[in-house]
């Protein structure tokens, strides 16, 4: 795919990959993936199991080193950078398996994310109460995402859906420019799916979102742009309506599409 020349009214690209590829031994997991993630848009990455979606995620967030290709974040080449470094640049991800700190409270979970940007993560001589000055911001996020009544519970005692919401709250605490969500709705009940979909739509107002998602009705509902992956390669791209009409996509899903 050739990158289109940008015009003024097109939303700007914040994260892009060109010719991205990853081999594990002799096996090519991802091949020649080109992707552009735009500011203030929700971009979905879909495809059948084993299509390489999570591998693409790991490559983009630098948890894996690509074998081929180039990744650019906000005009900076990040292809060879470390994952914690790109996180500090504003590219923050979630994980397929809920990633909370289980034995910390909801408040502490959010504060851990706030500690680094507020330069309160290396002081080994200060008491824990020095973290209280982060409470105001943490509490606002906790309230915004409807977790106020669980503030002092340990994360492990939350329901599955709320753990995912806590994860999003923690991620948002960093005020990321690009948010990568790996199956944010997996294993959630209808109620929680609706709530999280609303949250994602809300946070995408002023940041880019790329999400891997199996729930196609959610994708149809909230995503502006869809990229379909099969066996590590892109087979279709566009808005949901056009992608879902694509015969190759229909074959790939073999009747699992709705």
């Amino acid at each position, binding site marked *: 795919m050739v990158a289109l020349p940008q015009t003024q009214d097109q939303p700007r690209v914040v994260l892009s990959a060109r010719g991205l590829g990853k081999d594990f031994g002799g096996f090519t997991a991802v091949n020649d993936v080109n992707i552009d993630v735009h500011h203030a848009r929700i971009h979905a990455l879909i495809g059948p199991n084993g299509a390489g979606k999570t591998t693409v995620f790991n490559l983009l*967030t630098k*948890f894996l080193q690509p074998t081929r290709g180039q990744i650019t974040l906000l005009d900076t080449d990040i292809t060879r950078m*470390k*994952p*914690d*470094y790109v*996180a*500090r640049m504003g590219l*923050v*991800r*979630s*994980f397929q398996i809920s*990633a*909370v*700190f*289980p*034995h*910390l*409270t909801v408040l*502490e979970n959010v*504060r*851990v*994310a706030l*500690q*680094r*940007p507020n330069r*309160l*993560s*290396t*002081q*080994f*001589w*200060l*008491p*824990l109460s*020095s*973290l209280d000055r982060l409470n105001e911001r943490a509490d606002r996020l906790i309230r915004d995402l409807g977790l106020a009544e669980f503030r*002092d*519970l*340990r994360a492990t005692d939350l329901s599955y859906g709320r753990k995912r919401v806590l994860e999003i709250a*923690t991620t948002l605490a*960093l005020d990321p420019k690009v948010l990568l969500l790996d199956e944010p709705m997996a294993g959630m009940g209808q109620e929680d799916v609706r709530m999280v979909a609303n949250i994602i739509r809300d946070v995408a107002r002023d940041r880019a979102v790329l999400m891997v998602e199996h729930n196609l009705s959610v994708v149809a509902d909230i995503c502006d742009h869809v990229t379909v992956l099969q066996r590590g390669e892109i087979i279709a791209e566009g808005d949901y309506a056009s992608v879902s009409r694509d015969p190759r996509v229909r074959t790939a899903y073999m009747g699992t599409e709705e």
Partner: protein
Amino acid sequence: MAHHSDTPAVPGVSVIPAAASIRVIFLLGLLALLLVAPFFLYPIFLMKLLCFALFAAAFNLLLGYTGLLSFGHASFFGGAAYFTAHAVKVWGWTPEAGILLGVAGAAGLGLVMGAIAIRRQGIYFAMITLALSQMFFFFCLQAGFTHGEDGIQSVPRGQLFGMINLSNTINMYFFVLGVFLIGLFIIWRFVNSPFGMILRAIRENEQRAISLGYSVSRYKLGAFVMSAALTGLAGGVKALVFQFATLTDVTWQMSGEVILMTLLGGIGTLIGPVVGAGLVVTLQNYLATSNFPVTIITGVVFMVCVLVFRRGLVGEFYASRLGRRLGLTSER
């Protein structure tokens, strides 16, 4: 002791209302016991106990609170003993300056060893620390200032701050007790600090900590150096207590012993390693004169502990019904 949440650890177990004051009374009782102990028990034995207790507590900072198993902590313990002994005996430094040199030397060693080992995890981390500490052992065996198999002998205890004569055993005891309490306070503060909170987060979910932008290896290295420095504090003081710095303290057996003490008492608790060290040192002391080989006894104790008290003595107590009612929640 580590961190008490205000909510009960397990629903259905109510915390005794006066739990906090019971804990304070218990701690004050323990302190009183330590203050009068030298008038009833052999002070050199008590000082040895305190040195090993601090050693184990410093080791636990790494194993219990960071999740790193080092098999090379003898380097910091024995190394600091050499540095302190040499500075005090050959250079004529005051005891406090000698101990500070031991701490700085151990921290420097920790920085080098940690920087090499920290990139590997689990058993590989343990093996690299073991290999590095074996290299340090051979260095100590060969280097001139350590006097090889003889060690540095008859190290003068000197005058603390030029005023207090440490060759008086009771003076020395209270000095060691003071160092021990300061060391424990530093560990407690370190664990319950903004830095300690990030360490907990890393131990709970390292990948997530990375994705939040934390360079986890730097935090681990920070904990490694702090643990090495406090181990050096224990080692430097021990050299003054026994007036002797020996090759025994840098052997891999010493690294193993501190692991034993920590596991026996309970990792991830502040008091656990202190109790474990007390038990092991006491056993060694009282069995040393019997014909029965002491290593067999400690071996059996260790096996029983691993099989029956998986959390260690203090860890099991924290997890027991009484422990929970006192609001003592173990970290793990």
